[in-house]
């Protein structure tokens, strides 16, 4: 039993068999090709930091504005 069998606690590598099984389940449920799923998951990964960055910049500007108004 090697360390390659580490599953998902903290930051160990996932069990290769489990990863393969999960992929098989997603395939059978979604019926989508790998390219489509890469695009869907990739979009989720890309959109989150972009939206967060925009919101954070807006919040910082709003805060600066409030600081100037209070002064």
């Amino acid at each position: 039993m090697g360390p390659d069998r580490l599953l998902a606690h903290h930051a160990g590598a996932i069990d290769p068999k489990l990863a393969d099984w999960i992929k098989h389940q997603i395939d059978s449920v979604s019926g989508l090709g790998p390219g489509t799923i890469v695009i869907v998951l990739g979009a989720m990964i890309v959109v989150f930091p972009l939206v967060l960055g925009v919101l954070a910049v807006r919040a910082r500007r709003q805060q600066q504005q409030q600081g100037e108004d209070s002064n």
Partner: protein
Amino acid sequence: MARRARREGTFYGWYVALALFFSIFLSVGLRQGYGVFVSTWQDDFSVSVATVSIAAAVGWLMNGLSQPIFGRITDVMGGRGVILVSLLVMGGGSVAMAAVPNVYVLIGLYGFIISFATGGVSFTPAGVIVARWFRRKRGVAISLLTTGGSAGGLVLVPFAAYLLAFSNWRMAWLVMGLLILGLAVPLIALVVRSDPAEMGLQPDGDDAPAEGDVQSGPPAGPLDAKRWRDSLSSPPIWQLSVAYVVCGVTTASIAVHFVRWAESESISPGTAAIAFGVLSGINGLSVVAVGLLSDRMPRRVLLGSVYFIRAFAFLALVFLPGQAALWSFAIIGGMSWLATVPLTTALAADVYGVRHLGVLAGFINMAHQMGGAAAVYLFGLVFDRYNTYDPAYLAGAALLVLAAITALSIKERKYSARYAPVSAPAIAQAGSAGASTTGDSGGP
């Protein structure tokens, strides 16, 4: 007590926590995603699974060892710089993985460099930053980071698997490296600040404290010490570490041996995987629930309860028959799986303040990793000798009861800033007098 902020909008600390959530998401996802490539490398490099696994084993060790080092650097230079540099190394290393020519370079690059760097994008520096930004809502904010790790496994691992299916492993690592360099690095640089004071803010978004207010400046704790080594002479750091070693022992052993245990009970790997998915789902809910509860009640009580609950899960594996054991463990164990992370980090911050929290949290996390590594080996030995995991699981249950008692024995009302507020003069006194002395004087 500082007055609550009357500003409009969301407290900026939540944006910081969410940006750190994303960095943890990538860091944990990248390391868990390693398993996706094992069989491909086995074929490409014409080596055994065991050889490819050396990189994962070395990586586990390096990640553990790096924690106190990055923790110390976080205390001295701030967590933002640590996370940024670590992300650059992680991202650059992942891009370089695309050009790995053989398994030896793989071991060097992934096992040593990338895994060491992921220690700089872990709960240690991220937890310190969040602990600086939050005082009253520290538990729920740190639990948000913890869910980032769970989300990394849920999203990035399938993403890596489909990238591999869609192209090849070199392209997959290149894309993941570019995601880190192109998204995480700018996000952390843009959004995260190591301390709210850098933006003229107070923890929790409170207004600036009036002169003489307690809890002004960076969050302190009754055992705040001038030198971090002084903290080692106080009981809570050892109580937290001992309990966290048991956390590492019981989670790493299950993580590695769960499928094999299921097979020994004539349960299919697929059913075991579904059960582990149930465990992960319940775990996600329990981490958030524990975070919310821990800001309203004593953290030691919750921490002790989490260890007790996990002990019952281990006993279920021994005393219940196959399927009943599997699902009982998934449900009961799910309530406790990652819930220890926000509780332990938040409690350490409450007790010791944030001045040396990086190195102290780093030591606690290293203890977790070392305990986990030892348990993975020892549980395997037990199975090989007795052809059953029962003795190992019984030992795990006994250790968990010990961990629960240890956590419950922490004198939180005496040592936590939540119950024994620390004034600025007391912190200065703590610095000159040492941890144990001030701890005694800091109680109500």
